């Protein structure tokens, strides 16, 4: 790849929620700003912009990462999943989302998109997590409303429902 000049916009191509997207970005453009402002997918929220709060967490090639600690140009060629990918159909929630609603795992909802993206990957790799492991993983997210207890309850309930659906994971 040639050196990309600071004062120009360059094409960036990535797969966003299963759809290939090409749009332009200056080298300094952060990935979340590319997703939100250039592509227009505003489900990903932006909190602290320095890697502390976890609100902007997306999955990059399947792994949860902070989209504020990544440039759009770095994600060229990558597979990115955001909260928009979770619901199976318009008007229907995923099991994880449904569980958050049922157990009051969110209040203002600002941190939720990031937490869901971490949990979606975490529960795939750890279908039957201990509460301690879950809490340690959630330490990468700040929620100023819930006190985390309903989030933990929602996550454990979702894990149980997902295990019941796919018993080979248990």
């Amino acid at each position: 790849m040639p050196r990309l000049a600071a004062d120009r916009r360059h094409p960036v191509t990535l797969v966003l929620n299963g759809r290939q997207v090409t749009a332009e970005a200056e080298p300094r453009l952060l990935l979340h700003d590319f997703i939100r402002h250039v592509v227009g997918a505003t489900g990903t929220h932006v909190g602290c912009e320095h890697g502390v709060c976890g609100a902007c967490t997306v999955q990059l090639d399947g792994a949860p990462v902070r989209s504020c600690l990544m440039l759009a140009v770095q994600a060229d060629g990558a597979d990115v999943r955001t909260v928009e990918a979770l619901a199976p159909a318009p008007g229907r929630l995923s099991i994880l989302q449904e569980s958050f609603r049922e157990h009051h795992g969110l209040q203002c909802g600002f941190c939720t998109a990031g937490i869901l993206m971490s949990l979606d990957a975490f529960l795939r790799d750890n279908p039957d997590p201990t509460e301690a492991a879950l809490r340690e993983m959630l330490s990468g997210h700040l929620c100023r409303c819930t006190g985390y207890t309903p989030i933990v309850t929602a996550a454990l309930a979702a894990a149980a429902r997902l295990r019941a659906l796919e018993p080979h994971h248990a």
Partner: protein
Amino acid sequence: MKPAAFDYLRAETMDEVLEALRQGGSDARILAGGQSLMPMLSMRLARPSLLIDVMHVKSLQRLSEAGGRLTVGAGVRQSRVEHLADLARLQPLLAAAIPWIGHMQTRNSGTLCGSVAHADPSAEIPLVLLALEGSVHLRSRKRHRAIVAEQFFTGMMATARADDELIEAISFPLARPDTGYAFREVGRRHGDFAIAACAAVVGRTAARLAVGGVADMPTARAFPLPADGTALDDALNAFAWELNARDDLHATARYRRELVRRLGRQVIEDAVRHRDALTPRKEEAA
């Protein structure tokens, strides 16, 4: 918070990286996992004119166990090492410390070499590298060299790396027989910067203790064994004072000294137990 403008080069070969570093000098910065550099760019504490992305250079993805060492290339993310099936056997200290680096979400991106390059005084990987007497492998257009950790870290976020050099890899000695390893850390919350972190490597006759989060850089000392009695307490106390702890927002100097004394003793004792669990003494084995 948005970074100031810079050029971006996604390097695909080592030659490209080294040539860009040679030309760019101190205005160029290596971008690997970005978990330390990106916040500095966004806060504009760093304003390089060029970022050289090294994550697509194949040779820097090397993660290998050879010659009694675990060698970790510049492109190897923390989560990849964390999930090595036999990490606890290869190098137990690394296995114990990695879960303390940031969070799962940052370890999925951050690299071990990046943490060493950043040289935060409270970071876990520099501490472990120092405790194990590991090495930093540097390469520039003109030369390549290996420096032991003790000589690599020179101060608060300062290292012996020259502007035109890339940290190509770091290497950790593999676990030795008859040796125990232990790690402990105290922070405000899991994933926060360490207020103090201690790593111990204990053989039959001596212990090596490294402390992070207290002085300007991780610092190690040798301590005589056995670990019981007041001689160790006195030595730990002297070490705690030597580190010149300072008060800050997170903890007082006095609290940090107390952590060095207590965590220091705990990790040495943990490492003695670890050693004895792995290699029972002859009379016990008989």
